[in-house]
Each structure stands twice: as C-alpha cells, then as structure tokens.
C-alpha cells in the first residue's frame, strides 16, 4: 500500500448548532491528487481549517506522516509541510507581489534574529538566494512582470495565482487548494489545470483540492470524496462519481 | 493676553519665568506668571530697579520636567537672564536646580515646598536655588501641633494625593509629627491625580471616626472631597494647607468647608494684599490665587536682592539673596537661611473658613 501522507479519522466539527463536519474520514496517499467536492456549505473549507489548525476539531484525529497534528498551532503544521490557499484570498496587501513570495520563503533562510539586526555576509547571501528563488516562482506563475506592484492591485485571477506561488514557496509536501479556479474564465481555468499538473510533478506534491469547476476536478483528481452536510455521501474515481446518482442529485444537477 | 513689560530702554534687567501655562497644571502656572507680570509692571511704573526697567521672559513647560529643563537652559544660555522665578512644583524645581547651578543663575521658586529642592542631600546646598515658601516638614508640623494643641484632636485621618509630591510630602511629615506627639492616625487614605470621586476612601474615614481630617492637596480636590465627605455625613473638622486658599474653593465647596482650618503662608485677607488683588482682578479679569501672591513675593525678594547688590549680575544677585534679611512681603517677613535657602521667620497663619469667608484665626510662630 502507498505511503499515507494525511490520515483523517472520524473528524467532526460543530459550531453552535451547526454540524459542519460529521464523522469524516480520509486517507491521502503520497503523490496523489484528491479532491473534495460537495454543495455549498457542505463543510469543505471547514475541513481545510481543521487540517491547518485554524479550527480545533470537536472530535476525531488528523495525522500527517503518522504524526498527530490536530490541535497543533497553524504555523507548526505549516512547518511540517502542509500549506494551503484560501477561498477568500488572503494576500499581504501592503506587500509587493515579490515580497508576498519572499515572506513565504522565510524557512529557506536560517539567519538569526541577531543577524537581522546587523547584516552579515551569510545573511546577504541567503537574502539574495531567496529573492532569486521567489522571482523564479513568479516566473512560473507568470507574474514576474508585476513583481513590484502591490498585491492588492492585482486583478482577482492573478491574486489567486500569487496565492499559489506563495504556498509553493514553502515547499510543502501537501498542498491544500481551496477553489483555485474561482473567478477564472474557462480559458484561464484550462491553463490552471495544466499549471497544477505541472507543479504537482515538478514539486513532487500531494494535493487536496476543493473546487466547484468540474472540469478542474475531473481533469486532475485521482480520487474524489463527495460530502454533504459534513458527511461523506460518495467516493470514487472521477468517472464513478460523475455518474453516481446520489452525487448528481445532491451536487451536480442535471446538465442543460 | 498680558504681555511682558515692553523694554523701553535698551538697558533692561531680564528676568526669566517658567511654569505650566498649558496642560492640566495651567491654573497654577498662569497664576504664577500673572502675579509676576503685575508685580513687574508695578515696579516698572515706579521707576524700575536700579533705574532700569525689568523685562520678563516667560516660557511654558506644560508641567513637564523635561521641558522645564529645556526652557531653563534657554533662559540661561540664549536669553541670558539675570535671575529666574518659578515654578510652583517641587519636581520641576529639583530637575532644573542642577541647570541653574551650572549656569550660575539664581532661581526663586514660588511654591516648591519639598526640602530637597534646595538641599538635595543632607549637608549639600543648591547654591543658586531659593524659595519664597515654607517647606513641607514645617506645614506638616504646624498642622499636627495646631490640631492637637488648639483643636484638642486625638484621632486624625489623612486623605492625600499619592501622585503629588507635595501632598505626599505634607502627609509624611504630618504623620511623623502627629505620631511623635502621641496622636493616633485612624485612617490613611490615598487617591490619584485626576480622581474626582473620593467616597470609597471617605466611607472608610467615616467609619474610623476621626476628630480631624488632614487634606493636604489643591482646592479643586478639596472642594470635591469636602462635599462628598459632608454628603456622607462626616462631621470631623477638616484641615488643609497652602493648596486651599482660593476664592474658587469657597465657591465650589460652599457649606462643605465651613468651619475648616488651613495653614497658609500669610493672610490673603490681610489689608496689605487687597490693593494688589484688586489690581490683579482688573488686569486679568479673574480672582487672585495664592500663587500670584507668592510670585509677587518672590519678585520682591529679587528686587531687594538686585538693589542690595547694586547690580544685575547673576552672581551678585545670588549673594544678595543669600544675605537677605527681614524683608517685608505680603506673606510675612523673609530672612533667607544661609544653610538651607529657606525663608526663616515666616510665620504660618492659620485661616478659618467662617460664613464662607477666609478669616484670619491665629499666627503660628514657627519656634513654638
């Protein structure tokens, strides 16, 4: 059996009276690209928030590379190799595009707080390396020509790409993408599909994807978990899921 | 706005002034300044000193020590004044004392009652620093003696302002004298500058049932606390100090301070002050404060010193100040103690509030 990167067991989360996630389990093997789909408010983003430690689970466990991470602080989880993008874009708006990425590179350099106060050759070297690395990432997402603009002024679609670049800068093992194609037109969506496929191999990523654009999910996912009201209602390969009547009934609807 | 006297002839004697003209100390700083300006005007009209006109250079320090230091440096180094008058707070005077020492310019404080203003440590003396007021140990002592001997009190309560060096000083010295004399402190309550409600403390004091309450702080707080005390049904006699005398107290506190006593530098109702007070009211359209009278007296000291020295040289003035003897001013007769630069022989007056008026009660001989 493949090496399981992420292992979620019997995860539940309630907010007041709302059962947002209900007894949800999922195993993600290394190198796979899985997708979670489901109607609005099904609990997908909440699952991401639970994995990344922004919420604490009401019940259940989450393990990453066989280590329990539920209840850990967000930044520690990130340090271990899980990164995400946000459904509502959250860039550092007063930073330039480049600095958004450079900030995310903070783990690529290790000079101390003391060296922060006085520049040393080591610091300068590391800073230069980080800048080069960040520029390369920007090239990859086609934003290198806007490197010095404020991130806030980029159009929506570009901001999404920048968010992905920022996440990649952390060199994650597991990347969580929350609706990366939202706000993109079909053409751009197509490019995004290719882009995700590209970074997946290039960075050797395991990816968990939330998306409502079916062409993205169908084009990329190895395996799909469908949830509704926080519960799993179906699982399977894209082809299986697509033709599953329960899924059609609850989520896909009948095409025009 | 009252302006400093215009220099009519080029040859004037420059006198520096600093005080809180803005910020929450402004009442006292402005009273200081206005008292000084009026005095200087009167002196100038009478022909000046040594035939020269006096010129006041007044700076605001908004009650901040750092600014005091700055402005005193400026007075000494830039304006080259002959002497400085100010200010009403011990803290700021302690802060500027080293500056005047270094710049060798005499300074007369109006209301810095902390002994350490002139004598920072046992055996040392700030050679250039003088004052026109008596000091906290003296007030504390007189208050204690008066309460015990004249009022026959046995149990005293103290209410004091913990963030005010003046108030803490008087309280400390009062408590010491009182206990030395065998009195009992039944309540010792503090409040912070800016507080307006004293009822929690007063309720405690009421319970302790003292004969007298010592309230060494400024008249606004006196008025508020006195009123609240009476509202709570406290009947003990209230005793105060030189922060009390102000017509505003009578207006604000009314009935509440009736029958209280306070220790003062002199009698503000004394006939000799009235003409000055009248002129003050005409000039500035406000009632005179005790600070203005102290500023007047400080100026009198300075005038005498300059005349005695026959020169406006700061060092000569300093020497003359130190040698000053038996100078009649509004608040008594001043002789400068060469050891401490405190005015000796300044008798304290005990003032009683009767029928909403300040009434001279008795003279308190310091040697008593």
């Amino acid at each position, binding site marked *: 059996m493949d090496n399981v990167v992420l292992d979620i067991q019997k995860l539940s989360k309630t907010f007041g009276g709302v059962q947002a996630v209900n007894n949800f389990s999922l195993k993600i093997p290394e190198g796979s690209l899985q997708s979670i789909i489901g109607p609005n408010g099904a609990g997908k*983003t909440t699952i*991401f*928030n639970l994995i*990344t430690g*922004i*919420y604490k689970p009401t019940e259940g466990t989450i393990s990453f590379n066989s280590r329990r991470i539920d209840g850990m602080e967000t930044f520690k989880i990130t340090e271990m190799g899980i990164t995400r993008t*946000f459904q*509502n874009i*959250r860039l550092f708006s007063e930073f330039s595009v480049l600095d958004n990425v450079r900030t995310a590179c903070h783990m690529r350099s290790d000079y101390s707080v003391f060296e922060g106060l006085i520049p040393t050759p080591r610091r300068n070297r590391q800073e230069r390396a980080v800048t080069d690395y960040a520029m390369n990432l920007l090239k990859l997402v086609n934003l290198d020509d806007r490197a010095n603009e404020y991130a806030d002024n980029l159009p929506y679609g570009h901001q999404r790409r920048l968010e992905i670049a920022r996440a990649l800068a952390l060199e994650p093992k597991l990347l969580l993408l929350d609706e990366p194609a939202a706000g993109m037109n079909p053409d751009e969506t197509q490019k995004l599909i290719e882009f995700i496929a590209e970074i997946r191999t290039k960075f050797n990523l395991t990816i968990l994807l939330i998306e409502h654009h079916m062409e993205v999910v169908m084009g990329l996912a190895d395996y799909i978990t469908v949830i509704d009201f926080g519960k799993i209602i179906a699982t399977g390969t894209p082809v299986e899921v697509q033709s599953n009547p329960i899924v059609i009934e609850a989520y896909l609807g009948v095409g025009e | 706005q009252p302006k400093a006297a215009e220099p009519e002839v080029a040859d004037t004697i420059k006198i520096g002034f600093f005080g809180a003209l*803005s*910020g*929450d100390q*402004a*009442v006292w700083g*402005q009273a200081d300044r206005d008292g000084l300006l009026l005095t200087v005007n009167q002196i100038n009209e009478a022909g000046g000193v040594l035939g020269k006109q006096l010129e006041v250079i007044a700076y605001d320090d908004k009650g901040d020590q750092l600014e005091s230091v700055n402005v005193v440096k400026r007075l000494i180094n830039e304006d080259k004044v002959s002497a400085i008058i100010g200010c009403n707070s011990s803290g700021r005077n302690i802060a500027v004392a080293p500056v005047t020492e270094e710049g060798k310019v005499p300074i007369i404080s109006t209301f810095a009652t902390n002994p350490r203003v002139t004598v920072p440590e046992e055996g040392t003396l700030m050679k250039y620093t003088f004052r026109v007021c008596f000091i906290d140990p003296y007030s504390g002592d007189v208050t204690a003696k008066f309460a015990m001997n004249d009022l026959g009190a046995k149990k005293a309560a103290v209410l004091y302002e*913990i963030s005010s060096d003046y108030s803490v000083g008087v309280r400390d010295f009062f408590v010491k004298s009182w206990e030395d004399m065998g009195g009992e402190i039944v309540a010792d*309550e*503090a*409040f*912070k500058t*800016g507080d*307006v*409600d004293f*009822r*929690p*403390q007063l*309720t*405690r004091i009421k*319970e302790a049932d003292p004969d007298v309450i010592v309230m060494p702080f400024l*008249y*606004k707080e006196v*008025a*508020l606390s006195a009123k609240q005390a009476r*509202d*709570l*049904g406290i009947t003990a006699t209230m005793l105060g100090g030189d922060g009390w005398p102000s017509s*505003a107290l009578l*207006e*604000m506190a009314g009935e509440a301070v009736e029958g209280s006593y306070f220790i003062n530098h002199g009698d503000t109702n004394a006939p000799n002050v009235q003409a000055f007070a009248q002129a003050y009211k005409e000039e500035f359209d*406000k009632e005179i404060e005790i600070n203005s009278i102290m500023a007047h007296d400080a100026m009198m000291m300075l005038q005498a010193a300059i005349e005695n020295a026959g020169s406006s040289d700061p060092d000569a003035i300093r020497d003359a100040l130190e040698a000053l003897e038996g100078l009649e001013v509004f608040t008594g007769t001043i002789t400068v103690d060469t050891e401490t630069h405190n005015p000796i022989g300044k008798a304290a007056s005990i003032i009683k509030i009767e029928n909403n008026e300040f009434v001279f009660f008795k003279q308190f001989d310091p040697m008593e």
Partner: protein
Amino acid sequence: MILQQIINGLSIGAVYALLAVGYSLVYSVLNFSNFAHGEVLMLGSYIGFFSLTQLGVPFVVAIVLSVVGTGVIAIVLERIGYRPLRLRSAPLLYFMISAMGLSIFLQNLTIVTIGPNFRTYPDIISTAPITIGDLYIGRLDLMIFGITLLSLLLLTWFIYGTKMGSGIRAASYNMRVASLMGINPDLVVAIVFLLAGATAGVGGMLFGMKYTVYPWMGTLTIKAFIAAVVGGLGSLPGAVIGAFLLGITETFAAAYVSSAFRDLFSFALMILIIVIRPGGLMGVVSQEKA
C-alpha cells in the same frame, strides 16, 4: 458600610457608564476609540455652564443647548478629523491618532481661550443626599444613574430595533458595500456622532454639577475606555456593565484593600477579563473564518 460602598461603586460606575456608552457607540460603527469623546463632554459642560450663568436660561433649556451643541460639535469633529480618513479607508490606528490630536487640540484651545480655572455650576437643583438610615445616596447620582439607563435603552432600541440601526451596523462593517445598498455613509456616521455627542452633552452637564467644570475634565474617558473594553468594545450593554463592574471594583479595592493601589485593581481586572475573554464580557469573539 458595605452597602454604602456598593452605593458608592454604583454611582461611580454610572458616571463611567454614561461616558462609555457614547464611546462604545462610535466604536461600534467606526471601530476605533474616539479619544476626543471626553473633550466633547467637556465642551458640553461649558456650554451648559455658560448657558446657565451668562444667558441665565432655565435648567432644561441649558440641557437642550448643551445636547444640541455637543451633537453638532461631534459631527463637526467627525467631518474634520475622521471623514477624510474614512473616505480613504485608512487603517484604524490613524483614526485613533487623529482622535488624540483632536483631544489635545480641544483641551488646550479651551485652556487658552476660556482659561484653565475651575468653574462651579450654580445650584440649580438640590444636590443634597437622600438619607436612608445610615446610608447616603446622592440625588445627582440617582439622576446620572437614571439617565444612563435611559440612554442605554434608547440607543439599544435604535441600533437593534430600527432599520436605520441595522443600516448603521452594516455601515460599521463595510461602508463601501453599505453605500452600494443605498445607505448614505455620511448620514449614518453623522447620526452616530450626533447621538454620541448628545450623551456627552447630558453627561457634561451632570459631571459639571458634580465635579465642576475645567478644561481637562475629559481625561476621565480613560476610565470609560477601560469600562468599554471590559464590557466588550462596541457593545452598548457591555459598556454599561463594564462601567459598573469597574466602579464596584475600584470602590472595593479602595475600601477593603488599599486606596493607594486602587487603580492597580481596575487594571488587573481589565487585563484578567480580556485575557479570559478577548472580546470583553459582552463582545462577540468572532472566530475568524479562513
């Protein structure tokens, strides 16, 4: 004794509450601490004072003049000091600094124009305390208490019970989008400042009668600020509860521990509460949804 201290605490609390309500009201809309609120109160106190002494109008008229005056002053201050920032969606910190500037400006302007002296309100209504056995209750305190509760009720009804109120809350979240819903942001803000100013006007009169009038009487806002924080910034009932809690704490600290350390207890209480409940007692701690 303990009963008397509770009464003391409540009446001190009522004073804080009256200030804290106006303060919280502005906070609930613009999300910043209006440090100039105390100065509006101070101006209200002066307006009342001069109306009574110079114009010789009856007490009720003086209150009306003071309320109208402070309402207008508050609106004008908003126009000068905050609106330009609002239009630019400047960070909240800037509002606070601007407010500090206004506060310094007004306080010192009063000192140089009206003068730094204390002024005493004429005796208009009897301020003699009511005695019940051994207990003393201030008449003014009762009035302040009543007016505080009344304004709390009115304001709560206005904010939570009327359409304009929900418009105000919408605008408080996002003025841009609120304007897309047909809400006139300037009007909303003006109404809020008018109301906050009005509470300051009444407060100013009452405080003036209780504590005399002087240019820096607004520094009391610090206590109102603490009260509002304890209660939960932006929550009107919270502000009132926080204020009473603060009043009681101060009183009991002074009465049973040490009056010299009195404020230490208020600060300790405050830090304790916001550490346990980061949004204050009544504040909604909205967990951020990522």
